[in-house]
């Protein structure tokens, strides 16, 4: 029961009053920012990153766990009451959730979302606790070649396999990889693509890229096309409670959705979009009240919301055990680790056991905080929703620029931020996914390091990636995923 002892020690860390307080602060701030329309979890985490610069790593990461969960819950509230999903993972919730709100059942919709998120989040955290030591055990056998091949696998699945267009996904990824090259090469101290600009020698900061793409890009887009100016906030009538009937219809949906969401989170499958829709479809099929779907069926909220949270926890498995981010939000969290000189992975479980298990324990605590804090405070979150658009975006940009400026106290970072904003505008307008660029920026330098290490060990023999069984397997699966659909189409056409 090694993991159990470690987890108990972790609870010792997470339950320290000061860390508990950071958890509360994280959940509250995460929910507050996450509720703002047009602000998804990735942007919430990126905008709040500068707040933690002066904290010790454990406190900061515990606060981030709270922000991560809070942002997710805040997003659901917005989706249900405003019908403007802040991110693709909330679209499924919007289908039934907003109709429930329109029918005056916003209370039960928010309750099943909050309680479902708690149930799914807690079960998923148990699964994370059980799974993490197993993956760590396996990953300890990985050398540089295996890591590099695994990263190639992650690159291809997040950019090429899913999404509307393979070529646009790959373009986003390669833009991120290029931005990751900027700065001083970690192994030879050779400056690359910095052109003598001091601010660029440190490399491109993930916060600047994420905030530029998500916040500045979004503000430019909405101001230019006024796409989200319409939209009415549904009134919250009645208490945020569920009837016995609601409970009976919700809990099987929560459990099924957890079973769907968690595995999808652990693999690089492009975030929570697929599991939330899958859960919606399953609930629609299994429901005894299929006629309610389209008119506000509570299963249609309970399922996708639970799936979203379970998958968000699942994402932490590859992030913590392998150091591989599989979503833009996870990439930003990895950036937060790197700010403290920490590299998630099997070694971190051994070297910083207290920190990692404290973080995992704080996920349990965070779920409870989310439940006890948000149901009573829901009235405040609803009021946050009715901030007028002009003031909302003005405020978001004041915070967005603050994060970039505080890096070096330099206007150069603000210029970079604006250029990333233009990039984000173009990516949104021409449907180029943003996630692969953020993942490429963070994971690219790690992949390069592993690649060069692998070659240094093999004395420059590149066949090492294909002759080591684990590495070869990763590459074979990658090739199958990348070329499989195309080959299948050709074969069918004959």
């Amino acid at each position, binding site marked *: 029961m090694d993991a159990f002892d470690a987890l108990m020690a972790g609870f010792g860390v997470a339950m320290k009053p000061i860390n508990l307080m950071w958890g509360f602060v994280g959940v509250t701030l995460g929910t507050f920012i996450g509720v703002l329309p047009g602000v998804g979890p990735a942007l919430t985490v990126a905008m709040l990153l500068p707040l933690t610069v002066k904290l010790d790593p454990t406190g900061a990461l515990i606060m981030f766990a709270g922000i991560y969960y809070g942002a997710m819950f805040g997003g659901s509230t917005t989706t249900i009451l405003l019908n403007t999903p802040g991110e693709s993972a909330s679209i499924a919730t919007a289908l039934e959730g907003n109709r429930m709100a329109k029918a005056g059942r916003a209370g039960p919709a928010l309750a099943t979302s909050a309680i479902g998120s708690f149930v799914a989040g807690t079960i998923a955290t148990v699964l994370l606790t059980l799974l993490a030591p197993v993956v760590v055990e396996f990953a300890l056998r990985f050398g540089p070649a295996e890591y590099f091949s695994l990263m190639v696998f992650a690159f291809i699945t997040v950019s090429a396999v899913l999404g509307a267009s393979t070529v646009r996904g790959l373009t986003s990824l390669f833009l991120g990889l290029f931005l990751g*090259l900027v700065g001083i090469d970690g192994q030879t101290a050779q400056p690359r693509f910095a052109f003598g600009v001091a601010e660029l020698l440190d490399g491109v900061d993930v916060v600047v890229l994420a905030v530029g793409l998500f916040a500045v890009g979004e503000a430019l887009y909405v101001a230019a096309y006024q796409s989200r100016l319409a939209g009415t906030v549904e009134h919250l009538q009645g208490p945020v409670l569920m009837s016995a009937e609601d409970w009976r219809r919700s809990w099987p949906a929560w459990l099924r959705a957890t079973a769907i969401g968690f595995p999808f989170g652990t693999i690089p499958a492009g975030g929570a979009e697929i599991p939330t829709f899958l859960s919606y479809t399953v609930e629609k099929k299994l429901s005894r009240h299929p006629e309610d779907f389209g008119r506000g069926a509570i299963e249609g909220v309970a399922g996708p919301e639970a799936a979203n949270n379970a998958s968000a926890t699942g994402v932490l498995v590859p992030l913590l055990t392998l150091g591989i981010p599989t979503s833009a939000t996870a990439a930003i969290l990895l950036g937060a680790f790197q700010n403290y000189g920490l590299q998630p992975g099997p070694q971190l479980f051994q070297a910083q056991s207290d920190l990692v298990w404290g973080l995992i324990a704080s996920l349990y605590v965070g779920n409870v905080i989310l439940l006890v804090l948000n149901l009573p405070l829901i009235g405040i979150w609803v009021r946050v929703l009715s901030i007028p658009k002009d003031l909302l975006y*003005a405020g978001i940009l*004041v915070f967005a620029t603050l994060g970039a400026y505080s890096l070096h106290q330099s206007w150069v970072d603000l210029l970079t931020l604006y250029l990333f904003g233009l990039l984000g505008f173009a990516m949104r307008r021409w449907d180029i996914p943003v996630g692969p660029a953020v993942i490429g920026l963070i994971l690219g330098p790690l992949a390069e390091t592993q690649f060069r290490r692998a070659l240094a060990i093999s004395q420059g023999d590149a066949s090492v990636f294909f002759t080591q069984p684990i590495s070869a397997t990763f590459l074979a699966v990658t090739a199958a995923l990348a070329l499989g659909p195309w080959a299948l189409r050709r074969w069918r056409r004959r």
Partner: protein
Amino acid sequence: MRRSAAEIALSTGVLGLGLAVAGVAMTLPSEGGYAGIGPNFFPGVVGAGIIVLGIWLSFEALTGGWRGAPPDNARERGEHAFHAAGFGWVTAGLVLHMALIGWAGFVIAGTALFACVARAFGSRRIARDVSIGLLLSVAVFFFFVRLLDVNLPAGWLQSILGSAGI
């Protein structure tokens, strides 16, 4: 057949970026010790990749347009036509902010940014926007400088805000 000038321009831009990255990569040293590859190797690979993607995008743009891309006509996307003033006011706010923050200070730059962005979203109440922007910036300034110990420039308001900034 659909052909979008913007898509062609963007595809060419990607191709140009790829050439630039590959060009810079060629100027980097190739010394690599045991690995046999130096700091120029990955930039070369990334540059080559971007060139291939630029060619691929150009091919799609010239043969019926990017596959599955949103239509150029804003109404077909369910949006209003491009509103240059909105885009321009956000840009003006950010440029003004980066020009002001170093010498006028965080609070003045933040207030200017706030007012410009509010204007971009259709607000005509300048007095309200400036006062809310000022309040928010002062609150953020004190929160970060006093509580979080993060340096932010006080600038022109040094005497009012105290010597907290740099």
